């Protein structure tokens, strides 16, 4: 036995434990978090539980994404405001050259992204409706006038990425900038990071779209679309933030 001292009984009521006396009947659902509707945990992997878990994960991911973009924005602002330290003269030197942004292209891209956000929302709502039928065990009737919103979103997403590539090409074609110009590097960094994140969202949507050909449960498909729509709307919001930053703080 590893225990080497005697067990001694001392008189104490079982109330001293860290975390309270524990007499209040719990009202917390297992797996469902603090929602207050605890039921015996018979089907804790049920639809809503799964959906809630994935929503939490998406919220946490967005938190992480926010940190990255906050840091990049800070870098942009600090670099713009303070310039660089010159080793020869030992002074801060302002070397930021304002970009000639292709506003028309940028606005078209923004509108495409905004539109895709809208179509994804329509796709999400359509799936929500369909699932209500699925829960009842009914094969959903083909809704009239319902367009393939998910595919349209995918198309628009690719259009946005293509448009961004055109913007970058436009900037590099301007050619008047030296390679070291920080404004271009930071523009690429911000928009590039955004595009990489958006490409991740596109991949998730592609998975959700092709899932129906691989006997994936409709529920999983719907969860994928639901959480990706959160992500997508957030990226659209971020895009306008970045656009505003490069417009108003262009030096």
């Amino acid at each position, binding site marked *: 036995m*590893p225990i080497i001292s005697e067990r001694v009984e001392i008189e104490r009521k079982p109330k001293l*434990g860290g975390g309270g006396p524990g007499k209040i009947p719990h009202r917390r659902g297992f797996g469902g978090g603090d929602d207050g509707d605890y039921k015996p945990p018979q089907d804790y992997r049920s639809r809503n539980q799964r959906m*809630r878990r994935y929503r939490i994960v998406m919220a946490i991911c967005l938190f992480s994404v926010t940190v990255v973009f906050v840091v990049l924005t800070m870098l942009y602002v600090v670099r713009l405001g303070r310039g660089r330290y010159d080793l*020869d003269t030992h002074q801060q030197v302002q070397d930021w050259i304002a970009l000639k942004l292709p506003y028309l292209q940028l606005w078209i891209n923004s509108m495409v992204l905004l539109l895709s956000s809208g179509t994804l929302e329509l796709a999400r709502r359509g799936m929500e409706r369909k699932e209500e039928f699925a829960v009842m065990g009914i094969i959903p009737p083909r809704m009239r006038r319902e367009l393939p919103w998910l595919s349209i979103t995918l198309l628009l997403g690719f259009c946005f990425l293509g448009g961004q590539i055109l913007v970058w090409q436009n900037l590099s074609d301007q050619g008047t900038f030296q390679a070291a110009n920080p404004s271009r*590097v930071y523009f690429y960094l911000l928009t590039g990071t955004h595009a990489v994140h958006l490409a991740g969202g596109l991949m998730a949507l592609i998975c959700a779209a092709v899932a129906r050909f691989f006997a994936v449960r409709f529920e999983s498909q719907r969860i994928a679309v639901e959480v990706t729509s959160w992500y997508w709307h957030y990226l659209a919001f971020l895009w306008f933030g970045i656009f505003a930053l490069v417009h108003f703080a262009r030096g």
Partner: protein
Amino acid sequence: MASGENRYPSLPSPQSQKQALRGPLARSGLQKNRYLFTSDHKMIGRQYFFLSLAAVLVGAWLSLLMRVHLVWPKLAIPFLGEIKPENYLGYLTMHGTLMVFFVLSTVPQNGFGTFFLPLQLGSSEMAFPRLNMAGFWTTLISFLVLLGAFFVPGGPSGAGWTQYAPLSALAASGPGQALGTDLWLISIALFCLATIMSAINFVTTTVKRRAPGMRMMRMPLTCWAWFVTAILSLLAFSVLTAAVVMLLLDRHAGTNFFVPGGLLVSGKSDPHAGGSPLLWQHLFWFFGHPEVYIAILPAMGVTSHLLSIFARKPVFGYKAMVGATIAIGALGFMVWGHHMFASGMDPHAGFAFSALTTAIAVPSAVKTFNWVGTLYGGRIRFTTPLLFSVGFVSLFITGGLTGPLLAQPALDVYLHDTYFVVAHFHLIMAMAGLFAVFSATYFWFPKMFGRMMNERMGRLHFWITLAGAYATFVPMHLLGIAGHPRRYSDLTGVQYVAAMLPLQKFVTVAAVITLAGQIVFLANLFWSMWKGPAAEANPWDCTTLEWTLPSPAPDEGFGRQHPVVNHGPYEYGVSVAENDFVRQDTPAS
């Protein structure tokens, strides 16, 4: 619900149920081998444990090489020959990286956390088993990529684990700065991804997968520590990912974030211009300081947990402990500048960083006070886990006291980059962290491997390690105060440094003895894994839920019968029936 030891019997459950519980991969052929490709959190926890064990062995071997080289620079090592300066820098970088990332950030959080967080919360699985598995395999790939640097031309990177630019940004700046540094950066980028995956899982599991009745304020302090650490990881590793990608862009895509203009590298002028080396330091330390707490918070959680168990007393000030954990986590994000006092920062900023750093002493003191308060008046059972926990408190105080000293900009300008700093962070981060890992290993070994570790060997291991830790690192403070700089491979020509050689020799001898003492631990670990006495379900008389399961914890966890929690986690020192504790799932009276 019935009470008693056999509430969660490990009866063979129907095959379908077992498969459902083992996770989604059970259906595919991938999980035929339940020890390798598994999404079971317990097996993944063990996998992390062995991964860190491999990393710590490599890291310790490198530290041995460095210590020997420092005092006998001309000595030819068998198979390696004489250690050249670039080799020394490579060992230094790899030692730091392995120990910080793959040991101290991995085993307390991902190793023990993955294994015990769901069990302590009363859940049979993490919220996302496959994500958990992806996290482990990404960590493993990252580990292999890092070790791969030993086998490429030029060897591993020599820029230190902090990878300060522009040294790390220019391939021409040293032998290991080409492919070696690329591998380092790719490895760390992968590690960041893996850690973020695992942190997401930890937060979701804590929020969503608590058993009925397991309120936040009824969670064991270990779970609190894992939860707060996961949030820190999410924030800190996101920033490091961005920084590492930016450095890779600087190296390969012609951007100029970190490299200033007008540099002459190996006689050639460098084309980069307009970057700021300070930017890297800000980004790195914005990750790097929270990283210290990512390493030490789980250790604190384990210590609080074990002191209460072996003092047979409730944790002194549970709420204060939770508050201090959160406060340390929050303050940890505001103090990164204290690593950069020597960079010529604005004195106002320096003052702010200094004041905030000193403020961390407050929650740390709350914790220390509460640990001592937990021990005071307890009926202490002097087991190996307890000894290591007390050792943690001791090392935490010794190492921690030099923290506020280093937080003074005026002092730090003198002590910066001396052995004083090395001594400080090795005591508080490395040694204290490892002591908590040791105590957790001795404590949870029965639940992880179903057998008890040998107590006698454990106590021998403790005394060797405690004496060795102090003998190694206390003299380093003196070296630092005398001005011995760190990170140099050979200072034999420098007179004032040569006078310190006897002390350096003492440190090396102490380090060798301490490392040799770890053979006792390894022997104990592997001997007990196969030959140790079989463990009971609850050998240490604990209240928390993992001890309601048989040892080792069965594959299906709690099975279909989920525990219902009615009590706090630290109800010790009460007389109920024949026990002096109340298990968390005991029905409320």
